[in-house]
């Protein structure tokens, strides 16, 4: 069974591009437009990896990350943060909250795919 990726961002075009890239890499893809929807989706069907935008309305990416990490049942879930804020402090905060990686926008599509593959071999 194919590994699943949850793409979370409030920018529809960015969601669209990531969805395209992840499908192309062979993952099952689901999407969410804000933090609340993301958590709901995680509860319904925990994905193997979340591509998580930080700045979103309602619950932001840090919040989602923290909530996911607080639940032992989702221990193996990988989280890669995406942010348009390039400051170091954001990266540190994200890593401290338990994210596996941190990618700054605008990103290179190849790099995103490569990073996701690194955490989640498509056919492992």
């Amino acid at each position, binding site marked *: 069974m194919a590994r699943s990726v949850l793409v979370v961002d409030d920018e529809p075009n960015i969601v669209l591009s990531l969805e395209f890239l992840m499908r192309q890499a062979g993952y099952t893809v689901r999407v969410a*437009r*804000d933090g609340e929807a993301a958590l709901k989706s995680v509860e319904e069907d925990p994905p193997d990896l979340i591509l998580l935008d930080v700045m979103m309305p309602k619950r932001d990416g840090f919040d989602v990350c923290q909530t996911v990490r607080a639940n032992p049942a989702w221990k193996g879930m990988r989280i890669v943060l995406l942010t348009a804020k390039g400051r170091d402090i954001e990266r540190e905060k994200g890593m401290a909250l338990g994210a596996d990686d941190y990618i700054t926008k605008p990103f290179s599509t190849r790099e995103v795919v490569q990073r996701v593959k690194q955490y989640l071999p498509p056919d492992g």
Partner: protein
Amino acid sequence: MLSPGIILLAAFGYLCLLFAIAYYGDKRADAGRSLVANPYIYALSIAVYCTAWTFFGSVGRAAANGMDFLTIYLGPTLVFVLCWFILRKIVRISKVNRITSIADFISARYGKTQLLGGLVTVIAVVGIVPYISLQLKAVSSSFNVLIHYPDVTMPGAVSTLPMFQDTALYVALILATFSILFGTRHIDASEHHEGMVAAIAFESVVKLVAFLSVGAFIAFGIHDGFDDLFAKAMAEPEIRRLLTTAPASAFGNWMTLMVLSMAAIVCLPRQWHVTVVENVDENHLDKAVWLFPLYLLLINIFVLPVAVAGLLAFRPEQVDADMYVLVLPMLARQEGVALIAFIGGLSAATGMVIVETVALSTMVCNDLVMPVLLRWRWLRLTERADLSRLLLGIRRGSIVGVVLLSYLYFRLIGESYALVTIGLVSFTAAAQFAPAIIGGIFWKSGNRWGALAGLGAGFLTWGYTLLLPSFVRSGWLDAEILTAGPFGMGVLPPQALFGLTGLDPLTHALFWTMLVNVGAYIGVSLLTHQSALERIQASTFVDVFRRGGAGQRFWRGTATVADLEALLVRFIGAPRARQALADYARQRDLNLGKLNDADADLVQYVERLLAGAIGAASARVMIASVAKGEIMSLDEVMAILDEASQIIEYSRRLEQKSQELEVTSAELRAANERLKELDRMKDDFISTVSHELRTPLTSIRSFGEILFDNPTLDIEQRREFLGIIVKESERLTRLINQILDLAKMEAGRMDWQIAKVELKDVVADALAVTRGLFAERQIRLEVRVPDDLPPIEYDRDRLIQVIVNLLSNAVKFCDAREGFVGLEAAVEGGAMRVTVRDNGPGVSQLDQPRVFERFQQVGNTMTAKPQGTGLGLAICRQIVERFGGRIWVESEPGRGAAFSFLVPIRLVAAAAQ
């Protein structure tokens, strides 16, 4: 019938009563239940100022000169009411330094100089002896008048009587005895003589009651009250003239008398003694400052009526006006009242003589005799075991000496002068102390040479201008000297120095003595330097309220405890010396028996004890004889004093600075907070801008790379992705433009194109731009803009920008299915209001002010994220406010929002430029 026997009995009885009171006062003091430790007794004791001169002489002066007797009482009143701070300072200084007399005060202030103390003493004795003799004369005259009762005859010259028949001699001797008994009980002259003070206060009551009784009897018993008395007086041209016209030199004379009496209330040795030395509690001054003037007022009430009654009753040559108080009751055959008058006069005279002799004897002993005796080595005084008995002996001897000297003066000279004139000569002598005292407590640079020069010059001038003429009047000197000056040169006649004429002798003397005194004091002080000790003393005196104690820090020497004890025993006797040292040890928790070397503190303590007994100057000499080492050098003292005053100044300034600093630092903190806030806002802004720029860029890059990496994508997908790239590029461009616009507006660098515009045209243009949006989402638009709107001056493009922004916002937020947007304009007051409303979710009360901030998008809770840059409303606000209007939103959540802005119609030309 008043026989001499009865009069003598009354007088003697009165004096016995005085002794009894003094004895009782001392007993109470010894028992620790002080009779005099209250402000009323203190104020009454100060009333020793009112002597026989007041009792008899005021009436005499009023009969001769009208109202000017009052000046003698106005001066002290002014001092007590207005210059109480001087008195308070003197009292404080004297307490701290255990000052025993006015001579001690001056000598202590100017470096504990024996020479200065001696000079002050000489001046005091020479100046005051006539004043004491005046009291003896008053007693003697009043007695001699009274014994002829009921005949009113003036006695002949006393000098024709054999001395042993003269009552004045016996009175003098009795008073000397009193002074010895109650004024020299202890060797420590700075201690209080409570019995004496009690007796003096009693005498003040007696003379006041006596004078008021006699005055009331004369005014209401002989005459029919004040109205009657003055009505009769006005009928007599001579008296009328006296009461209504002023003598030619009146004002100069008034000033002179006022200044003299102001100086006298402080500088007369007896006033100094009761006010300063006998002061039990500094706070008693607070009540005395009004009680004493009140006393003066009371005792003067009947002066004028009695004088007028006397003038009405007698011809001027018939009776000495000084005796009116006594002879008027005699004329009325009221022997009782006459006796009261006599006792009142006696009481006034005795009070003065007692205090004055005690004060003078302390000065003579401590500042004249002791320094000389201590200097004569062949007396081996410094080796005698107990000097306290010797000291007391000297003091008692000088009391007798002063009294006898006064008696002699009275026998030889007194007859030729009226009471008041003698008194004023003494006042002028005492006034010579004023510059050195006042300067000494307020001016640190006044020094001993200045004080010596001032006092010396003033005293010599006094002797020449006032004393010398009195000798002439007594027939001792050729009268020619008064007119031609010495040696017939004509330059320096004593009462018209350097041709200064037109003043009465007293004003003339006061002018010259004060001129040379103050001139020499200030001049010489400025030209010469102070010694180290003087500098210390000056500082101790002038800054008495700022410094705690005296300057023990300045003493570097050491002495053995045994030496100091021996010294004390010799001067104040063994029991009191032991007691004093025991007190000292107890206060500081020391065991003096084990202590070999005394520290500076103990040396200082012993010196002050000695100063209380023998005066500051002699005490210093004695201490120096047993203590090794010296006080510091002048340079060191100056350094410490300057350092001390600098430290005081510094700490004052520091306090001030630190307060200023606190204020400044609070301001700085606030400014810093604002800066940090601004910084944070700038940071946030940059971060937000960066985020806003990165977002479209991310889409553009992603789809660019996808298209690049996937050349085989079908045409539909390619078109979609390319469309996204184009849209996001447009978004990026719009964003960059808006950021630049906003930055320019905020920095005031926007290039505004102002012209006359019609709102209708502007609205039409804005609608043309947004028509597509409305059509695309099928939103109903309603526009209500009246045709008769006045033209406005505005930047046309910017106005379009505002309206377009508001319209596109409305489109964005209005109801998704049945969208409605309304635009209306109207003139309201002096402005045109443009409103754009929608039927969307509205803006909550909380968010309303925030929507005009940059990047403060208030998200629609239904859709995930509103489209737009988050800068539109911020830009609108910048534009509207630039043209003097304002923009705001009215909304209730769920019921749409209405954004309005105002355009002032008569936009002033100045704002447009």
